[in-house]
């Protein structure tokens, strides 16, 4: 009988030598890390079983040791990975089973007594986004000196794709203008740019746009989406609120390129920063910045439990902080330990504890200049007031005499309020009524009235100081507990403020941590998430999708980055600039870096040859066409029609909207159309009622302000068509555009000028012909002016007009 050679070989070895062919560290541990450790690791091990060391497996968990001496079949570990245990489900739970070869290795290892080194360090499967980014080397290439292009093209090579050529100059200028300021370039801007033959003409244009005060509006609106900004309280009553000074703070902070770490710290914890003694507005502005988390809804419905909705707002602050800054779906842990990411329900409520100790306050948003002006007015008022009081005193003794001498006609001429009091006998009048009567008398005195008018005039010089909503830390902190199943009526264990264990520790040991500690921890360069999440969101604005497509989920269920090295390089460069000249955390530097890349500057034209390999353009062999955000759809029409009012900031405004919109909410609110130029303000200033948003905003997917919005949808619907075609506001803008064309361009150039106002570029010959045909048909029937109106309407309705190419 022949015995296989390998058997003979095996027989020559001792058993121990034989099994040493299975190396725990090299063969077994990676299998456990791959399949087991995400649930049976250091963080909240399932069934209290840890498989991140062999010792842990031997100790076992709630169902006893996972490893038992003897044949492999005796070990719990073997039974569950083969699905042969009588009660426990097959492992890995609800995931693909181990491969036959993996099982075989484990069987051999168990049979050998599961040998493993002593002092084994626990292994851990750490998700990529929880490891702080390290700056990768930029690929060296001949065809690109820009780091972004080097990373992108390296991958294009791998996919067998090539980059697209640069977009034409006009398209490029319109693209970068819309992206940086949200406004299209004027024909003059275009002429200037196309005539600029300097090699750095584009970079100069970028710098000009970044310096524009409209930059803060454009990127401020992106931040408002995250902050769930609105001008009303939400829920069913939806009363108006004043929080626009916070919105203006955002615009100004971005325009001054406040470093992003400061920008966030002030918004999360501005009230906890040390008050500055300087007479300027620093501390007031820091307190005002905390309005970020006052953009929560307020429920004013009758019969509710106010505590329930206070807690709702706190929960929203936790969830928004998690999603907006950490890119984690922390809200999932409100009711139970996070199913996929290492965040326990307890840790959720540790975060909750940071936000549970503030009061909601209303702040006077008075600048130093406002305060000085107010003091000056008060000072100027004093002498006039004294004069008025003195005149009153002089008149008072003659009151009874005056009253007695009143004729019926004189009495009837007095204000109703005064007449009512005079109807009472003097002894029946209380103090307030006596004052009314006296004032009635004083008003009949010409000298008194003159002084009073002077007083009013002085007072009218006082600045109108708006209020805004802010947070203020309580002196007596509120105790926090875990809510069982997330239900506030079921309080569980008490918790202290703290951060999730999977992220770097809070550097606070000797005292309870507060919101400022949390804010600083979030913005610490060692925090693996914050910078990545931010650069990814900025990237998303420029290309439609982030490098991590799930821009709100960097956890284990999110999609992995398409270009991990580029993402990390951008995050590092943002925190610690090397190629950019700007300071750390400079958003303007980040914008400049991206928009000057060839990747950004590519044409967006779909190329059939790349379409087959990369239909979704994940590898960026071209730019993407992006439909403009709701506010910008309006802004583009405003600019084209020449009605645009460039004023920045201030209270919300009321451009026209169709009748009946305000009836759709529970409480009927009025909508009085703004005048004096306010009806032509940018879309971002339209007063935003959460319950009844302006239909032209809602129909183009403006976020609803109910919860944080990290990416807008871009729907494409018939109701959008009806809005651009028939909405009174757009029809009026078309009329203004028609008038502008006729006013500003010589007859022969009008069609081209009209197209340039809307698309920046000139029409193609074919387009010109089609528009001319339209104009001629219209002109024959309804005359020249009406024909221009139709041309203007058509242009404002074009897909290209409301798209960033």
């Amino acid at each position, binding site marked *: 009988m022949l015995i296989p050679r390998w058997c003979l070989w095996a027989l020559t070895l001792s058993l121990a030598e034989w099994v040493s062919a299975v190396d725990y560290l090299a063969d077994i541990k990676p299998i456990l890390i791959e399949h087991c450790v995400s649930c049976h690791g250091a963080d909240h091990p399932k069934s209290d079983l840890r498989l991140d060391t062999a010792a842990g497996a031997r100790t076992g968990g709630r169902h006893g040791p996972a490893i038992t001496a003897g044949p492999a079949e005796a070990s719990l570990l073997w039974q569950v990975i083969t699905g042969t245990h009588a009660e426990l489900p097959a492992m890995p739970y609800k995931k693909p089973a181990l491969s036959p070869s993996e099982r075989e290795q484990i069987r051999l290892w168990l049979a050998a007594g599961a040998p493993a080194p002593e002092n084994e360090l626990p292994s851990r499967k750490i998700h990529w986004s929880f490891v702080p980014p390290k700056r990768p080397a930029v690929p060296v290439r001949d065809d690109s000196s820009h780091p972004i292009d080097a990373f992108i093209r390296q991958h294009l090579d791998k996919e067998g794709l090539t980059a697209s050529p640069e977009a034409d100059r006009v398209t490029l200028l319109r693209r970068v203008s819309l992206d940086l300021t949200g406004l299209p370039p004027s024909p003059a801007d275009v002429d200037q740019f196309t005539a600029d033959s300097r090699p750095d003409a584009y970079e100069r244009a970028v710098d000009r746009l970044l310096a524009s005060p409209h930059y803060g509006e454009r990127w401020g609106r992106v931040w408002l989406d995250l902050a769930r900004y609105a001008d009303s309280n939400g829920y069913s009553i939806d009363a108006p609120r004043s929080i626009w000074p916070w919105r203006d703070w955002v615009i100004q902070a971005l325009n001054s390129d406040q470093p992003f770490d400061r920008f966030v710290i002030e918004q999360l914890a501005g009230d906890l920063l040390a008050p500055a003694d300087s007479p300027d507005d620093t501390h007031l502005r820091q307190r005002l910045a905390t309005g970020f988390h006052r953009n929560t809804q307020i429920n004013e419905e009758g019969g509710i439990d106010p505590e329930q909705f206070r807690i709702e707002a706190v929960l929203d602050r936790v969830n928004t902080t998690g999603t907006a800054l950490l890119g984690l779906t922390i809200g999932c842990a409100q009711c139970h330990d996070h199913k996929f990411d290492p965040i326990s329900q307890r840790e959720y409520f540790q975060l909750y504890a940071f936000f549970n100790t503030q009061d909601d306050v209303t702040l006077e948003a008075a600048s130093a200049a406002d305060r000085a002006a107010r003091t000056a007015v008060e000072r100027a008022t004093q002498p006039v007031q004294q004069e008025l009081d003195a005149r009153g005193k002089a008149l008072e003794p003659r009151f009874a005499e005056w009253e007695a001498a009143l004729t019926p006609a004189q009495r009837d001429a007095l204000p109703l309020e005064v007449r009512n009091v005079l109807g009472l006998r003097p002894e029946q009048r209380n103090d307030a009524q006596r004052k009314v009567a006296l004032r009635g008398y004083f008003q009949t005195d010409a000298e008194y009235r003159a002084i009073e008018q002077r007083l009013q005039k002085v007072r009218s010089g006082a600045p109108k100081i708006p209020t805004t909503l802010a947070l203020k830390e309580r002196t007596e902190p509120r105790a926090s507990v875990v809510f069982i199943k997330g239900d506030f009526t079921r309080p569980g264990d008490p918790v202290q403020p703290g951060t999730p264990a999977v992220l770097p520790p809070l550097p606070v040991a000797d005292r309870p941590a507060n919101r400022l500690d949390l804010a600083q921890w979030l913005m610490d360069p060692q925090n693996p998430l914050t910078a990545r999440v931010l650069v990814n969101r900025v990237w998303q604005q420029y290309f439609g999708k982030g490098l991590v497509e799930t821009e709100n989920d960097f956890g284990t269920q999110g999609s992995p980055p398409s270009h991990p090295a580029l993402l990390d390089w951008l995050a590092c460069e943002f925190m610690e600039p090397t190629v950019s000249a700007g300071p750390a955390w400079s958003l303007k530097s980040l914008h400049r870096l991206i928009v000057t890349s060839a990747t950004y500057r590519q044409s967006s034209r779909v190329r059939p040859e790349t379409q087959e390999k990369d239909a979704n353009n994940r590898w960026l062999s071209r730019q993407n066409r992006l439909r403009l955000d709701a506010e910008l759809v309006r802004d583009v029409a405003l600019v084209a029609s020449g009605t645009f009012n460039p004023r920045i900031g201030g209270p919300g405004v009321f451009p026209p909207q169709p009748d009946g919109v305000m009836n759709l909410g529970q409480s009927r609110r009025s909508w009085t159309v703004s005048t004096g130029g306010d009806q032509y303000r940018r879309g971002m200033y339209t007063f935003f009622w959460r319950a009844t948003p302006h239909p032209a905003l809602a129909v183009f*997917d403006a976020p609803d302000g109910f919860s944080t919005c990290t990416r807008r949808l871009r729907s494409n619907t018939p109701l959008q068509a009806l809005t651009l075609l028939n909405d009174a506001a757009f029809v009026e803008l078309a009329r203004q555009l028609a008038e502008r064309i006729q006013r500003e361009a010589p007859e022969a150039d009008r069609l081209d000028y009209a197209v340039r106002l809307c698309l920046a570029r000139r029409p193609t010959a074919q387009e010109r012909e089609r528009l001319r045909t339209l104009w001629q048909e*219209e002109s024959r029937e309804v005359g020249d002016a009406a024909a221009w109106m*139709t041309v203007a309407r058509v242009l404002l309705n*074009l897909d290209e007009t409301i798209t960033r190419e």
Partner: protein
Amino acid sequence: MNPSEPLRDLTRRHFFSRCSLGLGSVALASLLGPSQAASGPAPASHPLAPKPAPFPARARNVIYLFMAGGPSQLELFDYKPRLGQLNGQPIPDSYLEGKRFAFMDSSFKNRSTLLGTRRQFRQHGQSGMWVSELFPHTAGIVDDVTFVRSCATNVFNHAPAKLFMNTGSSQFGRPSLGSWVTYGLGSEADNLPGFVVLQSGPRGPRGGAVNWGSGFLPTSYQGVPLRSQGEPILNLTTPTELGDTRQRRAVEAIRDLNLQHLVATGDPEITTRIAAYEMAYRMQTSAPEAMDLTGESAATLRLYGVEPDRPSFARNCLLARRLVERGVRFIQLYHTNWDSHGGPGENLEDDFEKVCRQVDQGSAALVKDLRSRGLLDDTLVIWGGEFGRTPMGENREKTGRNHHIDAFTMWLAGGGVPAGHIVGETDELGFNAVQDRVHVHDLHATILHLLGINHEQLTFRFQGRDFRLTDVHGQVVKSLLA
């Protein structure tokens, strides 16, 4: 010669040489055919294009009669003689433990004595369903209907409870039932929105438009209110000074120029834009036509009790039938005000009688009319509020009842629901459902099931999570399936 002909030629050639752009030739034909602006099928690229149900469907369309404010089941359907006997006595503590109510303060316990109904009840039809004298017309359709007397919800204030009934969550920002359904199935209507909302009563429902919002789903799926006065849809009407000829000319020029740009860029999103303009233009004609009752016979108007041109719930019921005939997937009617605390305009005496009269005939007529036209088999009709009312009375100016979440009655008809059937039972006071409790999530699961959708599989990824209408809850109620 039509001036845009050379353009069409060029575009046609372009398209057929580039199938890789993924444009269906059917869509293309409808875009390039002559005078297609006013007719022809909706292009396939439309997000509301009808999609087959994943599983065999019993219902194709839904008409949801939303009784805003929470009608009192104890005055209408849930007959409790024992409650009458205990009238005026305090409710046993065992019922109140751990419960929360609206307007609850320290005096709550003292105010909550049991209130028997003063309405007469009779059994009707083969099922022997109890219906009160306030609903004579509804009593006539009991053999077409399944009554669910054991409905339960989670939330006891109006706005959040309405949201919960519509979206399965009391948080704002989730998609409504109608949005989920049109997201899952699209719509057969190519010239009307797939999800339409009609309103009647003294004011809009609490919470307003969020009740039919699309939440995180694309706005294509949000409910579109058709208004009973003025333009049926916002911005539907061409500005009068422009007129239809000029509108058509403009729409055609927009289409041609968009087509040229489609050729230049190759972006299929422009095809969707072109299709949206085509449908918008068709809607300008078809929506007013759908709202126009002049073609309805006198007999039909009598059946519903509709006075032409006077907005009413009954008129909206008739419009709902017309919309179903035109392929609209989901129609939701809101009628206010069923709130009955006993205060002014909200008592259980004459105020309640009034709102019953406003609703009874139209609801019953709708079921009869659908049946006689053979539409009831395919159309699921749902009737109910956001919650019910307490067995305890509430004494304000007059008699009323507080909001109650543990037991209330809804009814369903047609669309695969048993005819002449009763589901669930409450205890002798009508406080708790004691048999076959049907929670809102179960109701949602069942409605989707009837439409051929597994409620666990209709999902949308948002903020890193797959969301569904029923969240992590919901079971199909077998007794609601014929």
